[in-house]
């Protein structure tokens, strides 16, 4: 027996892994392709905002929210999900789209919050702002600070 085991065992383990992964992909293909249909750019979100109105949802940290956020945005993140959800429901209108944002195009919190709103709570019109907060600031959008 070598320091790293026998190569036959390596190949057997990797073969079983490949079979298991293939079976899982066949049974549960949800992870095969990302769904970008819920992502929206700032221009489109602003069009919605002007025509039908949108409810902005800020998925960043509370300290970031307090230092500056999109006017009317509701703070909702994984750190205080119940509190944020109460705030959202108190202002929520069934006819208004929800647009969730986090720091920038590379952050992931908005995806997680949007997914949880859709899958756990059944919200249908939930979108993720592609460029996030940095895109809003970069476009010269109005900024509110505090609560």
């Amino acid at each position: 027996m070598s320091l790293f085991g026998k190569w036959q065992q390596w190949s057997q383990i990797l073969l079983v892994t490949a079979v298991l992964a293939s079976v899982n992909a066949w049974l549960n293909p949800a992870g095969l392709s990302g769904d970008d249909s819920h992502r929206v750019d700032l221009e489109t979100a602003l069009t919605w905002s002007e025509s039908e109105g949108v409810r902005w949802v800020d998925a960043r940290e509370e300290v970031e929210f307090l230092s500056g956020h999109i006017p009317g945005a509701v703070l909702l993140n994984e750190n205080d999900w119940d509190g944020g959800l109460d705030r959202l429901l108190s202002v929520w209108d069934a006819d208004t789209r929800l647009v969730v944002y986090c720091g920038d195009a590379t952050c992931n919190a908005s995806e997680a919050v949007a997914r949880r709103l859709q899958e756990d709570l059944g919200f249908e019109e939930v979108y993720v702002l592609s460029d996030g907060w940095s895109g809003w600031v970069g476009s010269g959008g109005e900024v509110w600070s505090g609560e």
Partner: protein
Amino acid sequence: MVGRVVYGCCLFVLAAVFAYAGFLKVLDPAEFRIAVESFRMVDGFLLSASVYGIPALEVVLAVGLFIPRYRLTAAVLSFLLMVLFTVLILIAWVRGIDLTCGCFGAPASNDTNYPFLLGRDLALIFVAVVVWKGSLVRKPNSQ
């Protein structure tokens, strides 16, 4: 005696961690895909292969660690997998990416605590080394 107990504990911890992490991701590949995407390192086929391959490998390794014949190989692969995870988290930290670890399924919070993630991975690397070294001493035909 102490060595056997330490080895046994490390073996159990390593297998339990891989089984738990692997099953969570096997059951919800869509959630794990978001986590893998947040690293922004793979795309296309490699992304899908990672989404399904990593959880499958974790589950297989968890089982393999309990089969004496495969224990050494599973321990080596566990070590390599943990080193890979650690390097990926380090790269994400250097690049300033706000990532969703995805290590154990859905994120518990949205702030990336890199020192905690790295500390946990380094601890698991140590555990894997203990199991690897112990498996070299305890060959299957001597158990």
